[in-house]
């Protein structure tokens, strides 16, 4: 029974990853694409780790999954913020002065 639940979580993770790729192709501008990539990919990663926890219910597996998920959820928004801030806040006046 719990194996079926883990399989459903794994297929859901694949669907979320596919939605992330589809949003990366179909959206129009850079912030929309970054939104699709960060959120849907983070949800897919969380579902994969949840599926592993359901398949092997062990304290070691659950602890490692929680640590990996915490790392992913701490670092994904920071990376997206660095990327978006770097790409959106350009200052052409400074570039003209220094160039």
């Amino acid at each position, binding site marked *: 029974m719990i194996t079926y639940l883990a399989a459903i979580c794994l297929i859901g993770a694949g669907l979320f*990853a596919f939605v992330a790729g589809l949003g990366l192709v179909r959206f129009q501008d*850079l912030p929309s694409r970054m939104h699709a990539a960060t959120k849907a990919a983070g949800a897919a990663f969380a579902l994969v780790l949840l599926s592993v926890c359901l398949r092997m219910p062990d304290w070691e597996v659950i602890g490692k999954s929680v640590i990996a998920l915490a790392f*992913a959820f701490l670092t994904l928004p920071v*990376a997206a913020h660095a990327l978006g801030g*770097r790409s959106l806040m350009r200052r052409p006046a400074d570039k003209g002065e220094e160039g």
Partner: protein
Amino acid sequence: MIEIAYHIFTALIAASVLCCLWRLWKGPSLADRINAADVIALACIGLAVGYGWKNGDALWLDFAMVAGLVLFVGTTALSLYLDPNDLGESEP
């Protein structure tokens, strides 16, 4: 059952990576390409964890932890190359 779920998962991840490769090839700006490479790397980490899921092997979770941190460092370091005038070291 487990094999079927793993095959469906692999096919969906492959489709996602193909979409990201199209964006990596086509992307108008450098930030789009960095973003697509980020999603490809995260999909590969998920694929490795899914392989461990199929085999009942929990060792791939260590790989997921370390590769997540390395992915963050790589994306942040690449995003520093986007606009050289905004690095903060050229203040008057």
